[in-house]
């Protein structure tokens, strides 16, 4: 009796193996991009710190990156203290958050708790339009309409408003991040179980009381995650500040004065022709790395909070 060998293994399919490998490699590109971002900035940053010390960069109070034409010129090294840029970035982002946080949160509450399905279906996409408008349009509007308007109103009130004030850029940026806050807050509010709502209403609380005392506190983690993501978007926003906030590195907390930001300085340092080795161009990469680390930190915390909280109520 001859024994026939029966194999239950399918035949080899080299094309499929290749395809699977291609699928896998494509997904690794996301990681490669992150690594690429970090490496591209890290090398230039290290070279930058050969010229300027880390402590001067992080704690220096003066930013004036012009480098000398002649080597023996007075003050030829330029000043690379990033503090005025950091405070400027924080000032503008803070103004943006002061505008966007209440408006975004209250809009989300209204949409999630009060609005009928029909109204919600109309208003929500309209708010999303704000997020879809290119930032260069916001920048143009801030510089052309909002800044002169503030300057004029300030003048009538006897206030000195710079033509490229932090306030103008911050206000417009605030409008830009409203949809970010409102849509994430909306998700958080909708994730609060109905049992909580019904219990509070059943005890005789009004709807507003239920929202203020029960639903919003229960949704706080999700809402704060949204706030963090919005803050990170405000810190990384470029075009609005390039067009409306200017380049004067003032160390001030006055929103009516001109300040500059990390992103605006990166653009100023790297547009046009540049030599690759000067401390001036390299400083842009150090600023970029600082920006990347800050926003990454905010994003990771925000996503952690949002995800953890989502699981809790699921």
């Amino acid at each position, binding site marked *: 009796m001859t024994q026939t060998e029966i194999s239950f293994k399918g035949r080899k399919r080299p094309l499929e193996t290749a395809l699977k490998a291609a699928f896998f490699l494509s997904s690794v*590109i996301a990681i490669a991009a992150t690594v690429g*971002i970090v490496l591209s*900035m890290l090398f*230039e940053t290290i070279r930058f710190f050969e010229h300027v010390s880390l402590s001067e960069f992080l704690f220096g109070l003066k930013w004036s990156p012009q480098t000398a034409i002649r080597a023996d010129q007075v003050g030829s090294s330029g000043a690379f203290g990033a503090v005025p840029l950091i405070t400027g970035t924080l000032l503008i982002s803070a103004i943006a958050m002061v505008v966007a946080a209440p408006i975004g949160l209250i809009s989300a509450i209204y949409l999630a708790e009060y609005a009928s399905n029909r109204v919600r279906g109309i208003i929500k996409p309209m708010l999303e339009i704000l997020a*879809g408008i290119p930032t260069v349009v916001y920048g143009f509007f801030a*510089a052309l309409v909002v800044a002169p308007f503030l300057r004029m109103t300030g003048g009538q009130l006897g206030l000195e408003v710079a033509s490229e004030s932090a306030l103008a850029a911050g206000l417009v940026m605030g409008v830009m991040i409203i*949809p970010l806050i409102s849509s994430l807050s909306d998700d958080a509010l909708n994730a609060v179980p109905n049992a909580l709502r019904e219990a509070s209403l059943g005890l005789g609380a009004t709807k507003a009381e239920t929202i203020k005392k029960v639903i919003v506190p229960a949704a706080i983690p999700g809402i704060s995650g949204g706030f963090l993501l919005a803050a990170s978007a405000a810190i990384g926003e470029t075009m609005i500040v390039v*067009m409306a906030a200017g380049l004067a590195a003032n160390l001030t907390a006055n929103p009516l004065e001109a300040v500059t930001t990390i992103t605006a300085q990166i653009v100023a340092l790297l547009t046009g022709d540049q030599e690759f080795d000067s401390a001036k161009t390299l400083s842009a990469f150090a600023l970029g790395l600082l920006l990347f680390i800050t926003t990454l930190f905010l994003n990771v915390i925000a996503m952690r909070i949002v995800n953890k909280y989502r699981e809790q109520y699921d």
Partner: protein
Amino acid sequence: MTEFLISANKPLRRRHASETRFKWMGRIAIAASLGFLVVMLVSILTLGIGAFSRTEIALAVDLGDGDASSKKIVRNALFTSFPEVTSRAERRQLLRLPSADASRELDRQLAENPDLAGQVATLWFTASDDIDQLIKGAIDTDKPQDQRRISDQELAWVTQLQDLGQIRKVFNTGFFTSGDSREPELAGILSALMGSILSLTVCFVLSFPLGIMAAIYLEEFAKKGRWSDFIEVNINNLAAVPSIVFGLLGLSIFLGYFGMPRSSPLVGGLVLALMTLPTIIIAGRSALRGVPPSIREAALGMGATQVQTTLHHVLPLALPGMLTGAIVGMARALGETAPLLMIGMVAFIVDIPTKITDAATSLPVQIFLWADSPERAFLEKTSAAIIVLITLLVAMNLVAIILRKKFERRF
């Protein structure tokens, strides 16, 4: 008894009043953001609508002398129209009525219409930007002469031409058919538009297949575990990285390390592709998740391999959703400015780019450049370019919505 009721109702009424206040706060908040949107769009629309028309001046040009240069012909036509102008300074002012490009316009009209040679013909020429702004009412003629860009003398000439019917407004085709120019009346968006189209093509060709393959791997093949979590966290983070950081990546790696051509749509497209990839992957995954497991089980049960199941059965059902996500991602890439500034796509581009290695700019960068120009006429151009950009974005999003509606399927 009634007293008791009133005292009990007082706090209740207060609570109800606060309820109403709260509700109105919500309405006001929404109205504030939508109001801002409307104000912004309306002001840009009113500013920009003028750029779609153009002022032209009719001049009787004498084409009898075949040897005369077109520049001279236009000069002579102007001088004969206003014989009373004799002083050099005034004549120089007179020459600024038509655009600086008038002689080339004459050449073009002659080439189109060779019969004109040897005759005296009345031809239309594009007016200079100041005259154009005057005709459109953007210059306040009540102001004293030294505070506006048009002198009283020029004003008188324009009125004279208007009375003779020698000034007209036509649709500004040049805005869509020419590249950038130092002269606002001649500047167009075609070069920027082509730059955008080329960059977006590169972006789509790279990011769409890669994004879909990555989504397929993560959703259909990857074992859930640390590795797939790590990739997922990476993708989500990448989606939230500030766009300017991608520009730095492009500058240092694509331009610095690989030595790709500066200002080219190739590099622009590469950078945009990296930015769009997370959007496409996330949309692709949710589209794949929408395909019910029964489809997969049926295919696998019939003996199909996992790759066959995915490619023949799951992917076709998920493709419309993926495409929708890709279009939304492309729309975002179209509006992106900051990373393109980093890789030098911020140049004065007159020629229309035709290859992905040509120097180019993009529509939003063109807006940024024009927004910086001091001439009043560029304000109009900037707003008009914004109108074109927003129209394109709306169109893309509409296509995405229609696609979603058309192929939406409930399982």
